[in-house]
């Protein structure tokens, strides 16, 4: 069959300049960055992500591949879907590929317990230097105020908070955190993206911690407090909340799922912002982090995990340390 260029066959009416297809940029493709990339690609959006070395880019693509395989094992996808999703995600070293993106999300995953504000500001600055005038720059940060990040931008009105909850491909909402400077255009563009990926946008007016992080942290802290008081066991506190309030996970299982190290960083961020003890990391959280028991990701936290199965730890609070 003969092959020709499509553009030679456009109707004059149709030849008018159209907007380019929506392309998403992601800077920092850790676990959440990867989930956002998968989610967007599942909805037909081309995704480019930036990371710092070729090895890391390869590792990220491997990890995305594994996540897609897990989705197939859990019936959420077919091999054909996987191929299509992978074909739309590409990793690069240089920021210049962000030029064609209509939205760029900063999703830096800082493993170190340090304040990531400067790092994120720098990334915002680099993104702005690479993108077009009307590109929206968003941050997935859980506990940062978008105003604090956008000060590094020449056009702070393009900055917005866009907070995904994990796993981003399953959770049906996304928190859209406007600052007082965010323009209507940037906000509308962000809502359009939320619609494209089939998420319900939850409007948040310029608060660090959004709604989800501010509410989950006191719950987990209070559960730890009850544990320390000997009120009940990990399992029973979880079952109580799960069955009592119809939650998908109890507070401890939720902490393990989020990652206890990440949780502690959120707690420190919100405590720094609000100075309220309800956000101050519980000693149990700190103890688990020191022991490297970060939860489900590493196979042990409040519970143990083997082959995807969660098992209870024997004993009480005193046995929260590493299992033998």
């Amino acid at each position, binding site marked *: *069959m*003969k*092959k*020709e*260029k*499509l*553009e*030679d*066959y*456009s*109707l004059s*009416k*149709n030849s008018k300049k*159209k*907007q*380019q*297809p929506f392309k998403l940029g992601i800077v920092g493709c850790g676990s959440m960055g990867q989930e956002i990339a998968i989610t967007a690609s599942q909805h*037909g959006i*081309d995704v480019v992500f930036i990371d710092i070395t070729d090895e890391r880019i390869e590792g990220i693509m491997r990890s995305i591949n594994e996540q897609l395989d897990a*989705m197939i094992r*859990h*019936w*959420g*996808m*077919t091999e054909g*879907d996987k191929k299509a999703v992978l*074909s*739309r995600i590409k990793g690069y070293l240089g920021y210049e590929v962000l030029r064609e993106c209509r939205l760029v999300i900063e999703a830096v995953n800082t493993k170190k317990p340090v304040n990531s504000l400067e790092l994120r500001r720098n990334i915002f600055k680099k993104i702005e230097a690479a993108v077009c005038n009307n590109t929206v720059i968003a941050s997935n940060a859980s506990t940062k105020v978008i105003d604090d990040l956008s000060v590094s931008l020449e056009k702070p009105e393009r900055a917005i908070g866009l907070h995904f909850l994990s796993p981003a491909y*399953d959770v049906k909402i996304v928190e859209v955190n406007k600052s007082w400077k965010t323009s209507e255009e940037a906000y509308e563009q962000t809502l359009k993206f939320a619609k494209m990926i089939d998420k319900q946008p939850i409007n948040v007016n310029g608060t660090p911690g959004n709604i989800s992080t501010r509410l989950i942290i006191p719950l987990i802290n209070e559960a730890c407090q009850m544990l320390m008081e000997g009120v009940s066991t990990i399992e029973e506190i979880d079952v109580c909340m799960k069955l009592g309030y119809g939650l998908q996970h109890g507070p401890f299982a939720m902490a393990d799922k989020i990652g206890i190290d990440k949780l502690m960083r959120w707690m420190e961020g919100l405590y720094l912002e609000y100075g309220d003890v309800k956000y101050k990391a519980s000693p149990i959280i700190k103890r688990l982090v020191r022991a490297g028991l970060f939860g489900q990701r590493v196979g042990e936290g409040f519970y143990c995990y083997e082959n995807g199965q969660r098992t209870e730890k024997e004993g009480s609070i005193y046995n929260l340390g590493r299992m033998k």
Partner: protein
Amino acid sequence: MKILVLNCGSSSIKYQLFNIEDEEILAKGIVQKIGMNGSFLENKRSDGDKVKLEGEILDHESGIGYILGVLTSEQHGSLKSLDEIDAVGHRVVHGGEEFNSSVLITNEVVKKMEECIDLAPLHNPPNLKGIYSMQELLPSVPQVGVFDTAFHQSMPAWSYMYAIPYSLYEKYGLRRYGFHGTSHRYVSKRACEFLKLNYENQKIITCHLGNGSSIAAIKNGKSLDTSMGLTPVEGLMMGTRTGDLDLGVLLYIMDKEEIGTQAANTLINKHSGVLGISGVSSDMRDVEDSAADGNERARLALDMFHYRIRKYIGAYVASMGGVDVIVFTGGIGENGPESREEICKDFEYLGLRFDHEKNKGLRSKEADLSQTDSNVKVVVIPTDEELVIARDTFEIVKGS
């Protein structure tokens, strides 16, 4: 009169251009991967000219723009100008309870179609995009909507209702609607023309068997029952869909595998059926080859596929009080002599005498597969949904 038929999917558009007086297809083709990388348009003209046009197709409107562009082009076109297009017919998947026949598209009709989106959230929006685009590109050309569900709107309530609280039917319109209606209507009528029978007093069972399969009981020219329901997942075992399933099984799986509605939807629509059982493929030819090589699961998948069709035929014989004609159509129905043979066995008690010799090797053409003394006629009728859409469009535009 020249009629353009469009079938807009989520990322594709199939089209055929008819000269309706002699029902000649002047051109046909497909636009693929709309809004994605690697999008293209393939056009085939009646004289054999074929071309693949590669480039960016951002949305349905530009896809349709390119279709009109190639149809009027010097090199590969079939029309001198767009003025030659007299009407456009659209395939619309779900017409809900609102539409029991094809209609001329007006603003009021579009509004009602938009109200049906909830019932087919994956299919109706792209169908509507095609309509909006045509209203924009060819505003003075009449458009007609032909609904997959319309033919089955004749089903009586005792046939289409689900045994769920009635309030849920009232609240959400949850009931059997059925699909492939255009195909069931066409092949049942055509079978009667072919067999020289009066359509108005026959009991016909139409088996549309393809990657998606459905079966319908048509009594005196009206659909009495059909196997697909609110969605196309109910009924026969299909390439990748479960077909009928104990609802308790799905609840059990969701609980044990800890999956939500999204994964459950993928499980029942994409991982199941012939593919799920055989583990080989959703394509019947691959599964038949594998079964012939001794793959037991492939054999099981085929046995299940055939058995379930026989079971439905039996049920529809009971519901109509007999059967005069059984029609095979769709990819497997038209091209699967082995499947037809398996499905038609053991129906001697109905007086059906299947002609095994005529069936052997018969593919893609009209044929009577029953012996002359058979009480029940078995026929193969290749389906032609695009032609039905073009004919309906012609009738409606002529009438208006």
